[in-house]
């Protein structure tokens, strides 16, 4: 939409306009991811401090130590980037960026508000689940190329865990998609408009339990809290991260925080009504495109705020878990996946299927009928008509 606005208004050559738009979108997403990573390093220390009855950083730049993440960044940049002697140089350098790209690509298909999405994919959910599976390569390469037994242990554990948790994650993601009838994230988000009751998580009891299984699988697949076996300090020193230092180490951590934020964002859209707050403020205040374009845009902005808060709360919950629970053993992690998550998710799948079959309209009166064909946001309509692609 912006692309042909630029070509008509400023007469820019067509390819420059599209290239510029794509570049701007990537920069915005990268900015969000960097800001999120910085915010979370600061927040992790504060949450840990609060839980452990201490203050966390207070003196680094101002009262609440909010400059702590910048200080960390500078420290990591200044630190020497050493590569172990017999390490496989090329793969050692490549690993963090593979992990980071996988975490970044998830943001491409993630809608922040109605239509505010970098790449409006028809297979949004499926694309995100596929890309989330690639992050494990960065870890495996990192572990193997550090050429030390400990990192190999860490890499193998992480790979086994993430790969085995993709199964229940996929199942949990399919259930809301089945209820919503489409893979397109924007459509799923639009379906949950109106009061909080319309959120998919309250659609039926099975979906409610699925949300918690999804939370568990996200914890495991982003290697957090009770499942953080890869860098289990007490056993494997730092797992595959042992040999990394300085900027490469921070790229790995940005990837981890990025994928944490993205997965909790996906959870927010699939289960917690995406960019719709519990109270439909946008309709109440009349911020819709019907009245005026700018008002509609403000409504979307409010929606984006909603979405960011929900994802933020998801990450806060992950941190809260990390500082209270001890770590699970590798075989316990595997048994929880195989013996608890997968059968439970399958049962929820069957339950939801029967539920939608028995009560097509759903138990509660819904503001928007489910399964409706995805209504693209009004201003993107013209682009759909033409065959032109960026």
């Amino acid at each position: 939409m912006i692309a042909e606005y630029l070509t008509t208004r400023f007469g820019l050559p067509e390819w420059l306009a599209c290239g510029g738009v794509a570049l701007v979108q990537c920069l915005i997403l990268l900015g969000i991811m960097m800001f999120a990573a910085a915010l979370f390093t600061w927040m992790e220390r504060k949450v840990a401090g609060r839980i452990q009855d201490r203050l966390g950083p207070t003196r680094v730049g101002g009262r609440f130590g909010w400059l702590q993440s910048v200080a960390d960044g500078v420290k990591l940049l200044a630190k020497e980037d050493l590569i172990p002697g017999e390490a496989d140089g090329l793969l050692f350098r490549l690993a963090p960026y593979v992990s980071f790209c996988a975490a970044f690509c998830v943001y491409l298909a993630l809608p922040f508000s109605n239509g505010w999405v970098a790449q409006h994919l028809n297979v949004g959910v499926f694309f995100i689940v596929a890309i989330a599976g690639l992050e494990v390569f960065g870890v495996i390469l990192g572990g193997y190329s550090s050429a030390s037994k400990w990192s190999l242990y860490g890499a193998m554990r992480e790979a086994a865990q993430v790969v085995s948790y993709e199964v229940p994650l996929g199942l949990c993601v399919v259930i809301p998609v089945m209820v919503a009838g489409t893979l397109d994230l924007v459509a799923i988000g639009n379906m949950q408009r109106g009061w909080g009751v319309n959120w998919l998580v309250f659609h039926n009891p099975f979906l409610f339990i699925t949300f918690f299984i999804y939370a568990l699988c996200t914890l495991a697949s982003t290697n957090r809290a009770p499942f953080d076996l890869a860098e289990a300090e007490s056993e494997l020193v730092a797992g595959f991260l042992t040999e990394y230092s300085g900027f490469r180490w921070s790229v790995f951590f940005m990837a981890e925080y990025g994928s944490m934020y993205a997965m909790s964002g996906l959870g927010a859209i699939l289960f917690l009504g995406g960019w719709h707050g519990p109270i439909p403020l946008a309709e109440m205040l009349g911020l819709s495109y019907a009245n005026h374009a700018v008002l509609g845009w403000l409504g979307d902005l409010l929606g984006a705020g909603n979405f960011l808060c929900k994802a933020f709360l998801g990450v806060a919950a992950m941190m809260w878990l990390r500082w209270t629970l001890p770590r699970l053993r590798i075989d316990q992690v595997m048994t929880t996946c195989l013996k608890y998550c997968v059968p439970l998710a399958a049962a929820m799948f069957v339950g939801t299927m029967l539920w939608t079959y028995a009560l097509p309209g759903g138990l509660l009166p819904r503001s928007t009928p489910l399964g409706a064909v995805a209504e693209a946001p009004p201003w993107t309509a013209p682009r759909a008509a033409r065959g032109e692609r960026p």
Partner: protein
Amino acid sequence: MINWHTCFFLLFATITCAFAVAVVVSANVVRMAVCLIASLAAVSGLYFLAAADFVAAMQLMIYVGGTLVLLVFGVMLTARGPFVSMKITPANWLMAGLAGGALLILLLCAATSVDAWKTAAVAASAPAAEGGHTVAPIGMALLGIRVDALEQANPALRGGIAGYLLPFEIVSVHLLVVLVGAAHLARARRRRRPAEAVPDASRSA
């Protein structure tokens, strides 16, 4: 007609071919696996360009996310594992080159003999439907609805194929059974030799 479409197409095509060659050339096992991952990911990029979203995501998930993770596991778990590098003797090179070259020539002839592909112009303005929307038709075809003949006037022609759901399910169950059997057979079973009593660690450091 230079636009992003052709530019990206060329980029992905070169990545695929280059890394495919790299797989063959490289000596280190894990580097081979990484090159294979790169080339298959580039193939998925090609699918995206051809507006086949579903197939592209499927490629990413099945090939890159599934098969190659197993491949890397296999490389890591084998006895000498990731630290082995294979020496390739000139004789092997020769034979491989011959076989590869012959196949390449065959493919090129086949490709150029199809007249539909001859005119470059046609390729440039392929009818790329916006955003793909291929998932719903694929789903319906799976269930047996003739997607291409949907707007057909007389209803008789609309149906007609039994759909691919049943064979699809049978094949997947079959594959599962085969894999479980293979895993079971692969388990090395041997009688415990009396000498191999539980080693008392304090005797040997």
